[in-house]
């Protein structure tokens, strides 16, 4: 049987082809789903436990998807209009019941309503922004400036709420989904959130 010598050029060619194949295979890899899923169990207020996280830029921008579990009926308008919290942050070195900015939501009149929800120097302020469809990603953004929070939801006009007397530099910790108000989730509620940078 004839023995064939392999030279360096052939080795290089094979290596190049393998690398090219690797690149092609990698290019076929499906894009990862970067949405994080939060499930608030029936009877609970909070979703899963998370590591503490802080805001690191003037803007909190994200997409969120509500599914059919966002529909509920307490049979009592005063409970039905309790605002559930979606996502936001506490302001500079403040506890969130002192100074914070969040998006909030409620199922009301057969639609999912989104609110700007803030604590300013200990006082609560809520402003209706718009409605969002179920099972569809919607775009949310909170911009914090020296004197105000600006809330952006899809193509609705922005809503602005005056900021309290807080420091400029410090810790702004994230506030994750919370069901209620005072009443816990009537069934499992799932929300998907994808932070945008």
């Amino acid at each position, binding site marked *: 049987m004839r023995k064939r010598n392999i030279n360096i050029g052939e080795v290089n060619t094979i290596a190049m082809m393998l690398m090219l194949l690797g690149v092609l295979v990698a290019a076929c890899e499906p894009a990862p789903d970067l949405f994080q899923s939060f499930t608030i169990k029936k009877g609970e207020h909070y979703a899963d436990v998370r*590591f503490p996280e*802080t*805001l*690191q*830029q003037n803007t909190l921008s994200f997409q969120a998807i509500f599914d059919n579990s966002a529909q509920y009926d307490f049979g009592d308008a005063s409970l039905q209009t309790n605002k559930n919290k979606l996502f936001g942050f506490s302001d500079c070195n403040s506890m969130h019941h002192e100074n914070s900015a969040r998006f909030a939501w409620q199922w009301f009149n057969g639609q999912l309503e989104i609110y700007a929800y803030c604590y300013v120097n200990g006082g609560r302020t809520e402003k209706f922004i718009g409605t969002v469809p179920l099972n569809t990603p919607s775009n949310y953004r909170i911009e914090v400036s020296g004197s105000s929070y600006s809330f952006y939801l899809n193509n609705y006009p922005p809503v602005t709420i005056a900021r309290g007397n807080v420091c400029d*530099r*410090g810790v*702004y910790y994230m506030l994750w989904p919370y069901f209620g108000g005072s009443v816990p989730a009537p069934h499992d509620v799932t929300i998907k959130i994808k932070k945008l*940078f």
Partner: protein
Amino acid sequence: MKNLIIFVLVVLLALIVQFANAQSFSIAMNAEKTVSGTQYGPALSFQTKSNWRAGAFYQSVMNVRPERGEIKSEFYGISAAAPLKKCDGFVFYATFRAGLSNNQFLVLVPGIETEIRLTPRASVAFGTSIRMQHVAASGKLMFRIFNNSSL
């Protein structure tokens, strides 16, 4: 301007400490790929005889966001590195940075780093850390300006 003054003060402090204790004083160019873009900038540090490092850094990136236009993102502060293992021209460090992002948000960044000595005065370092709850990768080119033996 205020940021620049703070940065210069930190550098001067680092210089004073260097003259008092340090084995060497280094200047570095940093690049760090984070989830929100790649930040670049200088860093200054002094290093003790037992390879502990401390210093200051500044890095920034200009991001373009469709809804908000061009946004400059800055991160500056102090850094420290503790040697974990040393072998032929390699030093492995646990690193820690603390500083302000956009001159407003306190940020703490743990990480690890490998330094490779190329020459007695030059080295490169590669590291990974947690920025904005995501993994960030960094590269650094370091030059020792002087050390005790050359003073």
